[in-house]
């Protein structure tokens, strides 16, 4: 058996919420992601899913627990050298395409600086690679010298994906990466991500609250609530035969065509979770 792309063991993280008070964002979370698969982490706001992503990429330091990428443990407190090393394995695409790019520089710069940091290429070679990456994410190369304000949200998110691909990572963490886009653009980006996963041999950790997105892209699902994993399984299992009442609640609350709010049912499920 091959080594999993990511192994997270007993990750715990708390944040101070006031004097001598701490909120537990992650409570002994463990999970593995197999190479080439897509794991979706779902849960409501505050369930700790974003904190998990931020620890894995190195934006946040865990209180305890370990993260291993491609079988190698990563240092919990990341310095610059460590971040650079980790960035070659794992990259992140953020939620908001608007603030993901410096609005005063041509979008090409975002990709170019990643190439500069990780690849030993000359100026013209970098430009060429940059053009390749733009084509790869379905953007015409004429957009390279455009400012972010000249691009649509979907196009900006494509640039952000190109930036993530520039370092040739094996894992990409997508933190609500399609949540800020409208549904048609969402579908296009998800399609692109699915293609790239196969063509580039990528592994995804997909943070989302949107169950329709999960259905479209993920093989495995982890459901988080209040910093703990309450349910895990394949996408079909979790979406069709949810075991935990919280998962059932999430499914019951997900808007879909013909959906009507079922007040009594949600209250009942809430009670069930509380007990």
């Amino acid at each position: 058996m091959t080594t999993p792309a990511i192994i997270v063991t007993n990750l715990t993280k708390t944040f101070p919420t006031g004097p001598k008070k701490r909120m537990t964002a992650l409570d002994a979370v463990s999970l593995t992601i197999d190479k080439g698969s897509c794991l979706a982490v779902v849960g409501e706001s505050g369930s700790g899913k974003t904190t998990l992503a931020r620890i894995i990429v190195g934006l946040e330091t865990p209180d305890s627990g370990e993260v291993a990428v491609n079988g190698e443990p990563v240092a919990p407190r990341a310095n610059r050298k460590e971040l650079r090393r980790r960035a070659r394995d794992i990259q992140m695409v953020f939620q908001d395409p608007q603030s993901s790019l410096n609005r005063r520089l041509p979008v090409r710069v975002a990709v170019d600086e990643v190439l500069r940091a990780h690849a030993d290429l000359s100026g013209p070679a970098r430009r060429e690679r940059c053009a390749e990456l733009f084509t790869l994410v379905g953007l015409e190369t004429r957009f390279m010298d455009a400012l972010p304000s000249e691009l649509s949200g979907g196009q900006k998110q494509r640039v952000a994906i190109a930036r993530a691909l520039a370092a040739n990572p094996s894992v990409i963490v997508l933190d609500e990466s399609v949540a800020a886009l409208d549904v048609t653009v969402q579908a296009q980006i998800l399609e692109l991500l699915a293609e790239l996963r196969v063509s580039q041999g990528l592994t995804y950790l997909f943070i989302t609250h949107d169950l329709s997105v999960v259905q479209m892209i993920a093989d495995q699902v982890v459901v988080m609530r209040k910093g703990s994993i309450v349910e895990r399984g394949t996408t079909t299992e979790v979406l069709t035969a949810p075991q935990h009442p919280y998962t059932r609640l999430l499914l019951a609350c997900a808007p879909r065509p013909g959906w009507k709010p079922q007040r009594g049912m949600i209250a009942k499920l809430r009670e069930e979770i509380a007990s």
Partner: protein
Amino acid sequence: MKQFAERMGTLGLIACGIILVVVLGALLAPIIAPYDPTIGSVTQRYQGMSAEHWFGTDQAGRDIFSRLVWGARSSLTGPLIVVVITAIFGTGIALTAVWFGGFVDSALSRLLDLLFAFPNLLLAMLAIAVFGPSLTTAALALAVAYIPYSARVVRSMAMRERNLPYIRSPELQGISGAVITVRHLLPNVAPLIVTGATINFGFAMIELAALSFLGLGVQPPEADWGLMVSNGQQSLLNGYPAESVLAGLSIVITVAAVGYVGERLGGRAAAGRKA
């Protein structure tokens, strides 16, 4: 250019015109001023307005118009020194604090609070007591006193930008903080720095005039607007208000013009952020 005119509006363009006239007057003083501003004649004391002396003469028989034109030099260079030094150090401190955060941020913020607690003019007077009265001393001391104002404003905006993905993403690539700060953070807070500088310019001009008025800034017989207001006090009581009134008006008009242009530029910066 057309865009600039639109942003400024009619009043703004008038203000720009006033600033231009004052700056040109200062630059071309030797050509414009009909008389030497420091040499008067006892026989020419307290002349009224005439073709020979446009704004009359002061109690030492010096041509008031010439003194106003020459006075523009020190009245503008003083605030300029203050504003440039303030912007450089204020921004430097703010961006350092924001980049490192945590302890560095707290330490620098407390240092600024300490400076805040000192009244500007008192700090300037203290420096003058130590180093002797001159425009340079007064301007440098005021610059130090203004640093916390500039730093605090820039820090609060930079703090918001710090967590946005366009800053976080290159950070995750292991790109150095200095590069990210100069390439991404600085250009995005620059409009605020410019606006802050124009506002500080007005304050600095008034406070430097006050110091000159008190005899702690520009020294007689040099021409300076603040000094002229002070110099004209006696004449004012004797029924010759021209010197004090005209110098005072020059200060008020220039400060108002710079302030208005700054406000317009600030509005522009805010509008640019939304786009």
